[in-house]
């Protein structure tokens, strides 16, 4: 599986990529929307994990742009906003997009990635 991680917190996103690599998931990471779009244009990713609150292009906006380039792109949003209860209830889920609350449990992230891919 090849994933793209986008988050303005470099420490977070780089570490997450490293950890995913330990689990056999190849992860590219960038810290802003523009770079993310470049990556998307350059190659196909199975899943894109986007932070919602970012300087410049926000995660939501980035998601829309990605879908303009590749409507079939699977996306998981992660955010510091909201509580797990919201996601558990499934209220915020809509179609292809999934939401995860920070701090993320890596096992759950991988589970969601697999789920969304299938």
């Amino acid at each position, binding site marked *: 599986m090849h994933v793209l991680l986008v988050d303005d917190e470099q420490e977070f996103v780089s*570490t997450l990529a*490293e950890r995913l690599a*330990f689990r056999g998931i190849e992860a590219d990471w960038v810290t802003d929307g523009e770079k993310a779009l470049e990556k998307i244009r350059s190659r196909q990713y199975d899943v894109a994990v986007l932070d919602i609150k970012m300087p410049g292009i926000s995660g939501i906006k980035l998601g829309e742009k990605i879908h303009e380039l590749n409507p079939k792109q699977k996306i998981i949003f992660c955010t*510091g906003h909201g509580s797990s209860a919201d996601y558990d*209830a499934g209220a915020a889920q809509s179609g292809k997009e999934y939401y995860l609350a*920070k701090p993320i449990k890596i096992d759950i992230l991988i589970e969601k990635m697999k789920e969304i891919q299938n």
Partner: protein
Amino acid sequence: MSFLKKITPTFWNHRELGWNTDVEIYVYRRKWMMLILFISVLTFIPLGILTAIFYQMSSEEILNELNEETKINSENAALELNLYFEEYINNLGYITVLYSRKELTNQKTLQLIFQEFKKSHKGFLELDVLDEQGKILTSTSGLHQSCLKTGLGHWLDNVKKREAYTSTSCGNKHNPHLVIGRYITNAKGESFILRGTLNNLVLGDLLGKFRLADIQDVFLSDSKQQLLTRSKYFGNPGKKVPYPFMEHLPDSGQITDKSLFISKNKFLIIGASHLSGTNFTVGVVITESQFLRLMSRTTSQIMYIMIPAGVMLLLFIIGFVSYAIDRLYLGDMQRNLYMEQLEQTDKLSSIGRLAAGVAHEVNNPLAIINEKAGLLQDLFTFVDEYKNDKRLMDTVDAIITAVERAGTITHRLLGFSRKMNSSVEECEPAQVINDVIGFVKKEAEYKNITIDINLDETMPRIITDRGKLQQILLNLATNAFHAMDEGGRLEIKGTMDKKKQKIFIKIHDNGCGISPESLKHIFDPFFTTKSRAGGTGLGLAISHGLIHDLKGSLDVESTVGVGTTFTITLPYLLNFNQGV
């Protein structure tokens, strides 16, 4: 006492009810008093004017009635006396028919006739026979020989002119008599005068029967206002009536001249009537005291009507004003409560937003710590060298657990703040309770309070406003903590009634309890027993309002020294069209 309590308006005991606001109690009491005063003045002034007019009209009516009474009585008395005099004159005429002048000039015969006449005519004193020149031919008494000479010419002229004439005798001034003269010319052409003298005391008796109803005095006087009969107010016969009551006297009528309001005797009305064919006048008197007596009766009648009417009116005004001010007061209090609720909600909302901001900012570094710790764990797990270093692995696990814990707190904060905005959604009561308890757990530990949660596992998910329910539970839990300052046990029990489609959440503490007196006002806004401890007195009032919004109910049971139980009842489904 309970009746008094029942009729006392709510605002009256504002302070006793435990209101603790800037609203000054006396504002309402003063408004109440001012309004009663104002309406009373507006009502009672016209009522007073009406009463005065009514009184004045009654007074005039009584005066008219008394006037009429004096008129009728004086006329009747004059008529009676006229009849009496006519009878005398006629009887004197019969004597001249029965007896010739010769027989009448016989002293013995005249004496016999006089004796007979006296039997049927009370008060008959003398009988004389006079010739045309006024010379006494015969007399039953020789006493008046001289007196008749005085003014005789005038008297003779009147008798001759009118054939019958009644006047006073001029002899005894202290006891004047009435003299009736009859001029006769018989069949033989003989002319002479028959003169009878009457004791005027008889007239007094005759007039006495006209002293009826309101008439207090009846008297007879001559043209010089000299009394011929005894008067209750003016004295014995011979005395003069000291007031010029005859000056404007018509044939018959009343004198209501104010000059007759003599301060000493206070005569109000003297009615008078002329006796035709004489110079006599009958006078009747009504004094002011009689008028005042009648007026006092009228006054009493007015009072009998006006006092109860006034009292009724005043009671009505008090009742009406009390109702109006009570409405105003309750309206003010309600508005105040809404304002406070709004302020409180706004405050909570601000706190919520702040918490959300903080939570979000904390979440990002937490995520980094989490990932770094996770990486460490991965390194230790995937690199054999460290795999078996238990101490290292435990340390990393502890970091990850702490991050998870911190994450749970920030998630809760975010969830809580988001729920400040009203939104109806499906939620699990157990989860809401656990969320709230999660917030107060630390405080409970500090206060040495144990929390037991005992929920029915089959409790269904309900459709309600999660934020409002959280706020209610938080208020009740905080209240319970205040009641258990020295530690205790908070028990939360969740049950349900499938038939009624309702869930029940009981929050029980074994704290100090609430007195029955305070229990009555516990849901009143601003009622607080913790004012010194910073209680606003709004927590329960707001909770009560919120539970109302959720179409549920909030009940309380408490025993001082034993504890308090609040019971929240909520419908499975919050339907805004259903009643509470």
